[in-house]
């Protein structure tokens, strides 16, 4: 059935859930054991997700490790799960970050440890489920399932305004996704009436020939649902609240994975299902992405609260992801996917770092710090590397992603490229200025004199991230080669279907790309079962 010989995608998806069920039976008083068990589960999960990467055949563009089981045959709903080069890397990011999140919660979570760990593991299943689902209903179910544990994580273990933040998070996402549900249903019936085959199978629905007006409406419904999750300006207002109130690990997962589900949603669902509408939406999405980049960076600059600063920087970074994706050329999309990973790693690390000093000082105000590099040299080193990666310094992962995104955007539309590039400068401004105020200068608060440097657990938490930052920065090919064909196939597919309807009106934009790059890259879809 697949190179690994057993249903590995299902195993990776549901192992954390099984682990959560095991945790149910551990008495709540044994907190230490609960934490260790949760860590062990997440480590095993990471380990079983590695074969996905190793056995993933980079010579194939289509879905691999595909599993297909009838689920609700009455509706044509199947359990279809598989990975391609794009979801593969995001799955690994998920399993990787979850381990670090559980490690980082060791001290930070004091009450209801059992429920916390269970919520986290269920969340992991939900997120991976979204990434592997190739059936729209299966996808929708997982998509909604991720809401419940995240809602609880923010609401139970969050800060003072946690209830407001949790409810806002839930309602925003729910309101967006219910409209998507109507669009999914409409797509199902239109495709069914046209072909006689009623199915929610994504790969079959890709071929649906839809009237252009219908496409616009459906794309809008999908795009709003995903734009809220990303979050794109002007749907971003839930994000700072959720980030600030969430516990550290919650913020890491929120920034690292949950936001990526929005951008992933565009690349897997909204764009390839409705390519004509997607091409037509390039100006809207790009402009909103640019507003997000610049606005996010400017607001970030003015924040007094470290966590809010990082939260708004996410709006800016995710703007890059969207900008690159909607360049619709190889560089842009590859950079976009890469930036998803980068943002997960770097911003996740930034939230971890903010959490570490919060645990020590119980404040996140920039003004309460200053000169920390003198008392916490190890911490300062880690912080510096992560901050530079977030700024996209060459040699770090952030550079590769943002460079490709800007390259792709310049090719597609130089104006967007120029405006986007200002985001990189602004990122350096807010990040370095923040770093300077927190880490350098004289120690102005005497509470800061006794701060302990990182302990072993914290170093173990941050070290893998720093390794990833540099690895992804200096040797990106290792990751690119896994996604290259999938990205090319994605572009070839949407362009072919766009041009089948519209006689290549964007030709003048496409010219600098050259044809051999686009054409040669295409390999026919070859779902490997």
């Amino acid at each position, binding site marked *: 059935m697949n190179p690994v010989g057993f249903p590995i995608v299902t195993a990776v998806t549901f192992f954390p859930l099984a682990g959560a069920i095991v945790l149910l039976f551990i008495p709540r008083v044994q907190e230490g054991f609960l934490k260790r068990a949760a860590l062990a589960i997440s480590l095993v999960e990471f380990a079983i997700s590695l074969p996905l990467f190793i056995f993933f055949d980079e010579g194939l563009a289509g879905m691999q490790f595909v599993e297909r089981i009838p689920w*609700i045959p009455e509706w044509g709903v199947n359990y279809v799960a598989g990975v391609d080069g794009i979801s593969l890397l995001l799955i690994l990011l998920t399993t990787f970050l979850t381990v670090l999140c559980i490690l980082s919660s060791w001290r930070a979570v004091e009450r209801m440890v059992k429920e916390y760990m269970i919520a986290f593991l269920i969340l992991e299943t939900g997120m991976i489920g979204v990434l592997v689902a190739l059936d729209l209903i299966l996808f929708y179910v997982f998509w909604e399932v991720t809401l419940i544990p995240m809602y609880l994580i923010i609401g139970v273990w969050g800060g003072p305004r946690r209830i407001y933040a949790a409810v806002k998070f839930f309602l925003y996402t729910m*309101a967006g996704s219910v409209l998507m549900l109507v669009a999914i249903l409409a797509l199902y019936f239109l495709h069914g009436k046209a072909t006689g085959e009623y199915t929610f199978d994504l790969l079959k629905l890709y071929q649906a020939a839809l009237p252009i007006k219908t496409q616009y409406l459906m794309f809008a419904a999908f795009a709003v649902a995903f734009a809220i999750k990303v979050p794109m300006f002007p749907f971003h207002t839930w994000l700072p609240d959720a980030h600030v109130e969430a516990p550290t690990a919650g913020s890491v997962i929120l920034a690292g994975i949950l936001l990526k589900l929005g951008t992933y949603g565009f690349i897997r669902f909204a764009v390839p299902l409705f390519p004509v509408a997607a091409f037509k939406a390039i100006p809207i999405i790009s402009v909103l992405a640019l507003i997000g980049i610049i606005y996010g960076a400017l607001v970030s600059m003015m924040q007094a609260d470290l966590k809010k600063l990082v939260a708004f920087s996410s709006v800016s970074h995710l703007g890059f992801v969207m900008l690159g994706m909607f360049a619709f050329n190889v560089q842009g999309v590859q950079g976009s996917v890469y930036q998803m990973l980068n943002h997960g790693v770097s911003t996740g690390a930034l939230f971890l770092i903010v959490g570490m000093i919060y645990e020590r000082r119980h404040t996140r105000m920039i003004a309460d710090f200053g000169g920390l590099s003198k008392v916490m040299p190890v911490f300062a080193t880690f912080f510096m590397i992560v901050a530079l990666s977030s700024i996209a310094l060459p040699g770090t992962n952030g550079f590769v992603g943002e460079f490709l995104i800007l390259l792709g955007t310049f090719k597609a539309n130089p104006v967007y490229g120029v405006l986007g590039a200002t985001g990189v400068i602004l990122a350096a401004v807010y990040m370095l200025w923040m770093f300077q105020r927190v880490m350098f200068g004289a120690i102005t608060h005497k509470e800061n004199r006794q701060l302990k440097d990182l302990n072993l657990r914290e170093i173990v938490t941050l070290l893998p991230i720093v390794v990833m930052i540099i690895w992804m920065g200096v040797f990106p090919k290792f990751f690119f080669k896994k996604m290259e064909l999938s990205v090319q196939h994605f572009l070839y597919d949407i362009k072919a279907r766009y041009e089948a309807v519209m006689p290549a009106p964007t030709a003048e934009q496409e010219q600098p790309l050259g044809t051999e790059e686009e054409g040669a890259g295409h390999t026919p879809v070859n779902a490997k079962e």
Partner: protein
Amino acid sequence: MEIFQIQFSTADLLVIAPELVLSGFALLILLMSAFVRPGRSSEQKGFFGYTALVGVVAAFISLLYWGVGVETSAFSGMVRIDPFSLFFKALIMVIALLTILASLDYAKREGIGFGEYYVLVLFATVGMMLMASGVNLLIIFLGLEVMSISIYVLAGIMRDDPRSVEAAFKYFLLGAFASAFLLYGIALTYASTGTLDLGGIGLVLTEQAWISGLPILITGLALLIVGFGFKIALVPFHMWTPDVYEGAPTSITAFMATGVKAAGFAAFVRVFFYALPALQPYWTEIMWVLAVATMTVGNLIALSQTNIKRMLAYSSIAHAGYILVAFVAGNDLGRSSILFYLLAYAFMNIGAFTVVILLGKKGEENTLISDYAGLGFHHPLLAVAMTIFMFSLAGVPPTAGFMAKFYVFSAAVKANYYWLAVIGVLNSAVAAYYYLRVLIYMYFREPERELAIGGFSPAAVLAVIISVWGVLYIGLLPSAFLALAQRSIQFLL
């Protein structure tokens, strides 16, 4: 008047075997309670309750005599056994079973555990089942009255509690009006078509291109909508719902919200899709408006409720609105989704009400949502059950509520009622807010005071467990139930 010439044979009795068994047990309990002095030990043991339980199970077994796919009628074609009525009979008995399980200790606690309580529950069940199997307007009306009168009394059975008395009085007065409307509607329908038989009405309407009494028939149709609309609490016929749901004993509230609604919809669907499909152009638009009004008003008012029983009352109004969306769609998908929705709704709603029952004690019902503060810490399992019911009511996967809503809205989309579907899903997003509020109190807030819970009732816990199972099973593997719901509407084709 050939409609009143009723042929009678013993074979006919088999068709209404479950009703007969239930009536027999009801009379038995009535007889038993005559021999038990008030306050005696057998009453304390909840003997009547267990007898009623046995009665429901026996009736269920008698239903199994009729295999799936059987179609036969009895009493000169007035009562019918077909997949549709079998489905509803089974559903109503499951509801009755869960209600009695939830009642066993609750009724004892509140001092209403006398024989009459269970007798009335059983008779109400009989009435509901007659509504589901009647194919004659008179039988449907009789069933409705048997059900309604039993419920009027049950609503006011806590006679020392002024709210309960108020509930019964309100429900009775308004219910009597609604019955009159329904009866008048039946009369006008009879006047214009000359028959009370649903099949006969359908035949008259399809065979005659032009009906002389069309205005009369349309008036009758409107009156029928009012009558049924009252029973299933559609806006604007919903005014009684919150007060009655709040005042009635909680177990009876659960019974009303699920059983009465199921039976009401059964008769509603049967009458409108079996007898009056020819008038579909006339009623579709009315239903569209009613569906939107019912969903929206129900959800918006529920947002501001502080009492969980009132909140669930408004939520049940909203749910009737969702079901009406399927009614408007009017296709196969729509009809079977009504059945599926009622099934899913029964589990999640009875489950939620049973948790409410479990969290109260004598003299202290704890029905304010704020009473649930900190429940997640003190009673984690009960809180998890409530969480599942709330998410299901809100329509979040992987629960029965999601599958049911999905089915309903897919029917609307298939019939090209896009706007109705959009209004419906937006409504369910609004509704998420007030269901989440229960969770906020349970998990996010520290308890203001220790929640005083009376002794745990094993029977009610069993009802919760069955409901949780139902909600999750239908939510994860709905296939079998979908097939069942689809088979059950086939006679209507």
